């Protein structure tokens, strides 16, 4: 527990790397070689299976390669056409809407549940186990269960509400909320674990001192709890937003991008358009743009959130 929290703190406070004592340098050539041999295979594999394909993809985004046969260089045409394509712009809009709503909901709900699981409740470990179960299930599999639930069960249970009775998944305006529900349900599990470990680093004496001074529970939360778990909050928000922007499995399982293309996320569009749609190079350009967008968003988040982190 201590190692993980310290690692989180060290990485997220953009920490000043403490200088190591120079005496470690001497007489460690044998140890250094071993560490290199442990690291190199992973670096090679990563380069081969991740970096190389990415570079090849970026290369082909400047061509008109359909996935087979001949191709020519066409410069930035793919990128220019991307910005003119309203289907692409709609996909980005949907992905961002989904990601922002899902991130906020996930973090609010997870933090609340983590606060509950941190308190002295009965059968605490049992509850912690229950709340972790969604993370264990395969997204696609549980997605199909939810699809059945929304299409067949919910219309019968909530037959009085027209929105649900008509199968919310086929509603152009509200199908995305069903996908948010599934995404949040599953993402909360992991977020709860992170928040729980963060809450456990806060020493109890702080709360005792605060309550002696007459602080209300809400005041304790805003002044003690929240500032002290800000590093965990940063990690959770960054990971949530990045993960939700790339939503794919949930969309495929629930609506397959439907009705029409109302819930088509960027990743689904890239996959469909690039392969079965036969526009490999065009969607490669889309993927490059998406990569840049996510990187910028994540870096911005780090900047904003790290400034407000406290340490004690």
């Amino acid at each position, binding site marked *: 527990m201590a190692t993980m929290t310290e690692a989180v703190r060290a990485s997220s406070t953009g920490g000043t790397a403490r200088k190591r004592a120079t005496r470690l340098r001497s007489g460690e050539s044998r140890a250094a070689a071993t560490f290199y041999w442990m690291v190199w295979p992973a670096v090679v594999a990563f380069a081969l299976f991740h970096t190389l394909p990415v570079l090849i993809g970026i290369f082909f985004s400047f061509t*008109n390669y359909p996935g*087979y*046969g001949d191709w020519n260089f*066409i410069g930035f045409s793919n990128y220019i056409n991307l910005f003119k394509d309203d289907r692409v712009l709609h996909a980005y809009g949907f992905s961002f809407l989904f990601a922002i709503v899902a991130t906020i909901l996930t973090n609010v709900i997870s933090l609340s549940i983590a606060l509950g699981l941190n308190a002295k409740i009965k059968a605490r470990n049992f509850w912690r186990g229950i709340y972790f179960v969604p993370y264990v299930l395969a997204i696609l599999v549980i997605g199909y269960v939810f699809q059945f639930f929304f299409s067949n069960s919910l219309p019968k249970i909530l037959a009085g509400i027209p929105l649900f009775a008509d*199968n919310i*998944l086929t509603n152009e305006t509200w199908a995305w909320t069903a996908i948010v529900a599934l995404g949040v349900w599953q993402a909360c599990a992991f977020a709860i674990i992170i928040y729980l470990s963060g809450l456990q680093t806060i020493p109890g004496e702080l709360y005792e001192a605060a309550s002696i001074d007459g602080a209300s529970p809400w005041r304790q939360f805003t002044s003690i709890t929240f500032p002290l778990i800000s590093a965990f909050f940063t990690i959770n928000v960054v990971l949530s937003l990045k993960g939700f922007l790339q939503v794919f499995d949930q969309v495929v399982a629930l609506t397959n*991008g439907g009705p029409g*293309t109302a819930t088509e996320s960027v990743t689904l569009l890239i996959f469909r358009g690039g392969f079965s*749609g036969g526009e490999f190079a065009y969607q490669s350009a889309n993927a490059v743009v998406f990569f840049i967008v996510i990187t910028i968003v994540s870096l911005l988040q780090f900047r904003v959130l790290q400034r407000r982190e406290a340490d004690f």
Partner: protein
Amino acid sequence: MKPTASRFGRPAAVLALAGLAAVVGGCAANPSNGVTTLNFFQFKGEALNDFNAIIEDFEAENPDIRVIQNQVPEADTIIRTLLVKDKAPDVITLNANGGFGKLAQAGVFYDFSDEPVLETINPAVQEILADLGNKEGEVNGLGYVNNANGVIYNQEIFEEQGLEVPETWDEFIAVCDALVDAGITPFYGTLADSWTGLPSFNALGAYPSQGDFWDQMREEGENVGPDSEVSFQKDFPDAMDQQYQLFSYMQDGYRGKTYDEGNAAFANGEVAMLLQGIWAINPVKAVNPDIRAAIFPYPAVDDPDDRLLVSGVDVVVTMGKTTPHKEEAMRFIDYLFEKDVIEQFAASQNMVPSVKGAEISDDPSLQSVKPFFDEGKITGFIDHQIPPSIPLASIDQQFLYSGDADAALATLDSEWAKVAARTIPVTGE
């Protein structure tokens, strides 16, 4: 590295490699020992056993040829990888969709124009193939079996209700109304699987897009719109209204049901008709082997003689252009097109054989479409003419949910224009 090890190691490795190469080279198709081996690329999983039986008989009659069947999933992708490597298989079967047309236009298949087997094939079938695309002036594929895309109907229910097969649009709607009055749901909708909206779209849209509609659309390219010579917005509103009308006769909850649920419901007699093609008959029979199901084409016209059956070439047989075993491959292809061989295959797959005079099996679904094939009143699938990057199934599904034909047609036109604008043709330099 000790010197003694490398002294014997290197020459031994070279010898081993040379020996291996000799053995492998000898295993390759080597006419000098009398037997030619043909590489048969086969896409249809359901036809694996049928082709195995055909190959056995062929090899018995032709001991100097061996045929190895490679049944592949994702055939569209794999054939492209083979072509890119110049490893075109000797004999190929593919589904004749838009992708096949593109490959044919690229000139990777053999030209069958002068082959005698071409004369034995129904010209209407070859026309459908020609519409997909051939290299200029060539005939690059031989249609083997065709499917039929009409309305599947339960003959028992029709007989009980005293209904006749409708031959005009008004008769069709009258049949639907009569069924509703008798308390029977006319159709089972399965729009959770968005592609199941396409069979009816293809059939109804075939009527306004006859002639050189698609060539004109391609010429319009990025200028397509409500004011151009041809466009979806101009020519398809009637077809859309007809499709929407049919979908108003669906069961409750049709938006959330899937293809498999639809087949099972029809097989169990819950509905009278299914808007699916002949490919659905086998799954239906798997649920209820005793069902009597037949097919009639969508009568989207006022004159029964104007009716067209939408049919695609389900299996097209062709040959790689650069195959070194042209003669042997042609012998195998000629064997495939012999009457009794193709009849047996078509009956087993529940499809229509393309050879003139070949008997169609007794299955009522096939007998009901036979006249249209004999009279040449068949036409191809229009979704083969629409680029796959346009999400046609999704657009159609959205239209069927909302009923907004104008929006759907406008979307189709704008997608067509966008794709035309951003498709920069490969110049092969």
